Structure formats: structure tokens, C-alpha cells
């Protein structure tokens, strides 16, 4: 039979072991957050900005806010909105904090009014 002391020793060992492993895992995640790589597997390189766009968005001097008015609810439209958001995210990532975007779905009268003011035509 294991004595009380043995038990305590085994428990302590487990505790230390788990702490060390957790620390290693957290460290690995922190390191990977610092030095990461993204592999774009799409044939059209959808997640990579062209050289021109990349240079343009990186050289922004003033903050740029893009408001996107979208309509969702249909599978076809949703897929389009997803693609658009992916692209905008890419711009944001490259923009060094200068490029910001908001996706707006004008479903209240207030938002509809605002969209009209900004020159967006309502689509049926």
C-alpha cells in the first residue's frame, strides 16, 4: 500500500508536471502569435493583396474609414458579403491601424436614411 507520504509526493509531481506542460503550451501559443505564417491555398490568391494595393494601404498617412452597406439573408448574397469582408480584413491587416471598416446592414429607418445621405441607392 502506498503510504500517505508517497501519495503526497505523487500528487505534487502531477501538479508540477501539469504546470510545466501548461506553461510550455501557453509559451508556444504566444510565440506563434508573434511569428506566424499564412499560407493562401486559393488558386486566385484571394487572401493576398496585390503589390499595388498593399503598397497603397501601407502608405496611408491619415486614418481611412470605410463603411460598407450590405444586404444579407440570401445564401448567394451572404457568400458575397463573406468574400468582401475577407478582403477588407486583409486591407485592415496591412493598413497598420490606419484602415478601418464597418459592415452595415441598413435594417432600421435611421440607418436607411444615413445610407441615402451617403449616396447609396436602395436595391429591391
Amino acid at each position, binding site marked *: 500500500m*502506498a503510504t500517505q507520504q*508517497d*501519495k*503526497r509526493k*505523487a*500528487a505534487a509531481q*502531477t501538479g508540477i*508536471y*501539469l504546470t510545466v*506542460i*501548461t506553461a510550455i*503550451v501557453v509559451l*508556444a*501559443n504566444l510565440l*506563434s*502569435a508573434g511569428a*506566424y*505564417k*499564412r*499560407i*493562401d*491555398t*486559393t*488558386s*486566385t490568391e*484571394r*487572401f493576398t493583396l496585390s503589390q499595388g494595393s498593399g503598397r497603397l494601404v501601407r502608405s496611408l498617412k491619415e486614418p481611412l474609414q470605410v463603411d460598407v452597406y450590405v444586404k444579407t439573408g*440570401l*445564401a*448567394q448574397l451572404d*457568400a458575397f458579403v*463573406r468574400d468582401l469582408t*475577407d478582403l477588407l480584413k486583409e486591407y485592415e491587416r496591412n493598413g497598420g491601424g490606419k484602415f478601418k471598416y464597418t459592415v452595415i446592414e441598413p435594417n432600421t429607418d435611421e440607418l436607411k436614411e444615413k445610407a441615402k445621405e451617403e449616396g447609396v441607392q436602395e436595391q429591391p
Partner: protein
Amino acid sequence: MNTLLTIAKREFRAYFDSPLAYVVICLSFFGLGLMFFMYQGGYWQIDRATLQPLFEYVPAGLAMLVVPVVTMRLMSEERRSGTLEMLITLPVKDSDVIMGKYLGALGLVLTVVVASLAYPILMFKFPWSLGPMDMGPVLSGYVGLLLYSAAAVAVGLLVSSLTESQAVSFFITFFVLGAFWFSGSMADQMDGTLANVLHYVSFQSRMTGFMRGLIDTRDVVFFLSITVLALVVSFRSLERRKWA
């Protein structure tokens, strides 16, 4: 190593000795087909050659049902029927027991995942050709599914190693994987630090890149971390008998 493979093989075969494997595989595919082709107009409404919906439903289905069902009996059953004592007094290492059972269960889950390859092959290669398909995102989607299944099964094994009851194991795994999955959508409704944390740990947010065709090393590291952590903890929970 040899004992490990023996245990893995035995576990894997045990699924096919009972109706479990057949029920799981058949019903998963019935559900998947229904979701893929019917849900909100399904595949046809998107009107483009993509399998993105497939990668949205497979992990959700796996998280909700397949993984909990497959992993619930792994350790619980041994513990309840008292065969665990026998198993660990045999000249096998604890790590072999854990890894063997893990690989056996992962084998069944990956059978479901690999079988879903029938979708891209039948729809875009032969006999039907529904449009020019970009195979890149399919590849990255399957890389993501592989990593995701590895992590989910490890979590299921961990939960199973903590309880004697299969039902409890099922519901806890179901809940944990569901919470990890939906924490992403929950985070979309909030902002601040909590939202960032929820996004960080969400399996769904982590899968988004993979299913669109983007392999990010951060997501790979995340899924591997969860796998390793869950396996280590379940290994230690087997050791618990030495001191508890």
C-alpha cells in the same frame, strides 16, 4: 509502441463489433446531406463551385454528436466495469493505454471525415462536374478538419477519463465542445477583452480560415496545443489512482 498499436486496433475494431460505428457513420451522412443540400436552400442557392458549407457543418456535427458518442465509453466504461484495474496491472504503460484509446477513437472520427471526401470527388470530378472547383480550399479545409478532430477527440477522452458514467461523459463533452464552438458567435455580440478571449479559444473562429483556404500557423499551433494538453491531463488522471 507495439502495445500502443494493439490497443488502438482493438478499440477501433470494438466500434465495428457493436452497431455504434454503423449508426454513427450512417446518421452523420444522412444529417450532413440534409444540411448541405436542403438547409436554407443549401448548396444550390450559393450558386458557385464551393464546398464551404461542408466545412461549416462537418465540424459542428462532429462536435455536437459524433465525438461525444465515440469518446464517451473510452475510459468511463473501463472504470465502471472494473476492467480498468486489470488493464493497468497488465504490463502496458499508462501512456500506451491513453494513446491507444485516443488513436482508436480518432480513427473512427477520421473515417467519417475521410468518407466526406465523397462530396468533392463525386460533385466536381466524377461522375458529375458541377463547375471549375478550386481544390486549394478543399485541401486546407481537410487539414483544418484533421486538426480539429484531433483536438475534439482528445477533449472527449479527457472528459471520459474523469467520470464513471458514459451518460455524464457524453453530456459534458457535448457541452464543452459546443461551448468551444459557439463562443465565436457569442463573441461577435460583445466587445472588450472577454470577446477577444472568446474569439481566441473558439474552434469555430479557428476553423474559418481553414474552410476559406487559408492555413494560418497560429491556428495549427492552437489545435495542437489543445490536443497535447487534453492528452497530458487524461494521462495524469489515469495516474491519479496512485495518490487519490
